[in-house]
């Protein structure tokens, strides 16, 4: 750290969290996330990213609650799909929109890389592609909802299905809004020259939403019996 007076250095060496060996084997990114000695530094981006990560951890616990409830209810239910109801079917469109959502994670990764290399036009193109892919997923999901022959009040199946897909869909929608906002922001001259932690944070969010979909997809469409 730049403000290391000899005194501070001594403190750092004495502190149990600052053993030189530990520092040596600590991955650099972890050291960035957990500043050890304390100190006012001007790494605004990392601070904000840390806060965002904390928020995502909190967010993942809401999903955990919903997922655990789904598993617990489904594992103990006598009849999961009520008689006369077809239940959520994995149609070709569901599969297609899921694949598109998951591949948008790859696209956004390349968009981020393009920005790091300062290729702003390429960044905008790939970023726009992510937005469109997300929008397609949302469109397909709403279409699936309208085609379903069950509602939230149809047994536990309907309740859990709409809770999981609805809460996830809400995240996709929020993601699209944030992505669009960052796209519009990119037209402000020199906005991303100092750093682009907003882009990093939102792409982190997007990966989060995508990974969650893998879990939800397996639970809703692949769990048989």
């Amino acid at each position, binding site marked *: *750290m730049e*403000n290391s*007076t000899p*005194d*501070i250095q001594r*403190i*750092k060496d004495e*502190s*149990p*969290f*600052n053993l030189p060996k530990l520092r040596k084997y600590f991955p650099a990114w972890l050291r960035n996330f*957990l*500043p*050890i*000695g*304390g*100190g*006012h530094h001007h790494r605004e981006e*990392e*601070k*904000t990213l*840390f*806060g965002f990560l*904390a*928020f995502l*951890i*909190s*967010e993942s*616990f*809401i999903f*955990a*609650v*919903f997922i655990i*409830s789904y598993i*617990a*209810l489904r594992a*103990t*239910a*006598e*009849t999961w799909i009520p008689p006369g109801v077809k239940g959520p079917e994995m149609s070709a469109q569901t599969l297609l929109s899921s694949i598109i959502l998951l591949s948008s994670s790859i696209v956004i990764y390349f968009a981020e890389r393009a920005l790091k290399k300062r290729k702003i036009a390429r960044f905008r193109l790939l970023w726009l592609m992510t937005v469109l892919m997300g929008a397609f997923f949302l469109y397909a999901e709403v279409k699936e909802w309208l085609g379903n022959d069950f*509602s*939230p*009040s149809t*047994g*536990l199946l*309907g*309740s*859990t299905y*709409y*809770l999981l897909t609805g*809460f996830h869909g809400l995240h996709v929608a929020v993601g699209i809004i944030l992505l669009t906002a960052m796209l519009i922001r990119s037209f402000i001259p020199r906005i991303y020259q100092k750093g682009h932690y907003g882009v990093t944070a939102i792409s982190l969010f997007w990966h989060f939403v995508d990974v969650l979909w893998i879990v939800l997809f397996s639970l809703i469409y692949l769990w048989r019996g």
Partner: protein
Amino acid sequence: MPNNLVHGVTLPESESKHTLAESEKNWRRYFTFNTDHKVIGVQYLVTAFTFFLIGGLLAMIVRAELITPASDLVDRPFYNSLFTIHGTVMIFLWIIPSIAGLSNYVVPLAIGAKDMAFPKLNAIGFWLVPVGGIVLISSFFLPGGAAQAGWWNYPPLSLQNPSGNIINGELFWILSIVILGISSIMTAVNFVTTIVWLRAPGMTYFRLPILVWATLTAQLMQLIYLPALTGVALMLLADLTLGANFFRPTAQGDPVLYQHLFWFYSHPTVYVWVLPIFGIFSEIIPAFTRNPLFGYRSVALATISFVPITGFVWAHHMFASGTPEWLRILFMFSTELVAIPTGIKVFAWTATIWKSKLHLETPMLFAMGGVMMFLFAGITGVMLGAMPFDLHVNNTYFIVGHFHYIVYNTITMALFGGIYYWFPKISGRMYLEGLGKLHFWLTFIGANLCFFPMFPLGLQGMVRRISSYDPQYVDWNILASLGSFLLGVSILPFIANIAFSWLQGKKATKNPWLATGLEWTTSSPPPKENFEEIPVVDFPPYDYGRDKYSHPHLANR
């Protein structure tokens, strides 16, 4: 060594009189969307205290009803709403926001930061509190009245909707919980980031005051466990409004699942409240005994150990809910485990006080009273953690007594102590010692008079949540009701004291308690960005007893 070095901290040569005068005049900022953590801290405290008065009023109506065995003062549905909203207000609108307020004020100062990590988020988090509170209180005026299912709000009782309207008290209760939950998650993100990132140079983790350790622990727990409550509230909302079946036993739903998810947050939340309270004890007791905190590192590690431990204790609330036997025994042991880190702290405070010269000013009185009351609360807690005993007193006033020894006799008492302790820093003025002591004795006597009778009542088998009871319980109930009215009276000297002192009190110096800790190295009240220059820390916490301040004559201050 330059003579402006105290405890190795460089003090500014002159206090900034300019900013001080300016900020003092501008009281309007407390009513605006301000991003200064000090303003937000005061906003939190005043808002929370207002809700405390409302919640206290509801409690006094409950106690007035219980003064006679018959149900004769209010009708029964209204009685249900009274204790439901009393509990909800006291927990979500008094304890949580007042702790958020005190931490908001003190923590950035104590770690040598200019402000919280995300000042705007901080302000949004605060303004959601009055919104959630108004939603909750306004539900009294809906047709059918406020929610009636208790602050734990178990389905299927909470899904009954006696009024038959779509807009009902239960809906408002859930909305309020979701709003306040979002506010708390914002605050938690902010605190954790602030403590990890904004510590002053040299402020290593093992130099943080225990209050900061406790805030870090409590807010980490909010971050991890609170989403469970928000999630379960959303599920209940779906059941209530969309006709979903998560907790409807008639449609294969599982009401016990609600209890699991609810207590997965709502037990850890007790530590979210009480750990900052332990932090306040750990600040006040060393300052008024002039001793360093005994076993600082053990206390710090005991504090942080609550994050994992509390994740495995929730089911002790469900010993009587048809929980499988192996689970009950498992949770009995994990629950009793909590007594270890808690015991470490009580020993640390006792050892700090041991053989010291006590300075019994108001904050110290409240702290010692709080620790003493916590012994009762903790020991009855250990008793309740033992499953056979818990099954015996399940759903009786014993539980109510234990809980109120925690939330009033320990938490509220310590909060008052904390407010008196930091009042000179917050307002720049001293409070009146005489009124403060009067407040303490009224609170101490009133709280014990109100809540102690609940232990014998519970052991004799009086069940809670009812407005009429068997006449054999009447004597203890009269005592408890008198105690509750005394508690109502005890607030008056506090209000008078704070209002008078803030306007007319004697000017406070920078460090009236001659305490260590960075917040006492800046002016009272602190300037806009807290410190004239960023402090550099090279001394341990609780550095009492080895310098010229070791035996100060506090009386001649």
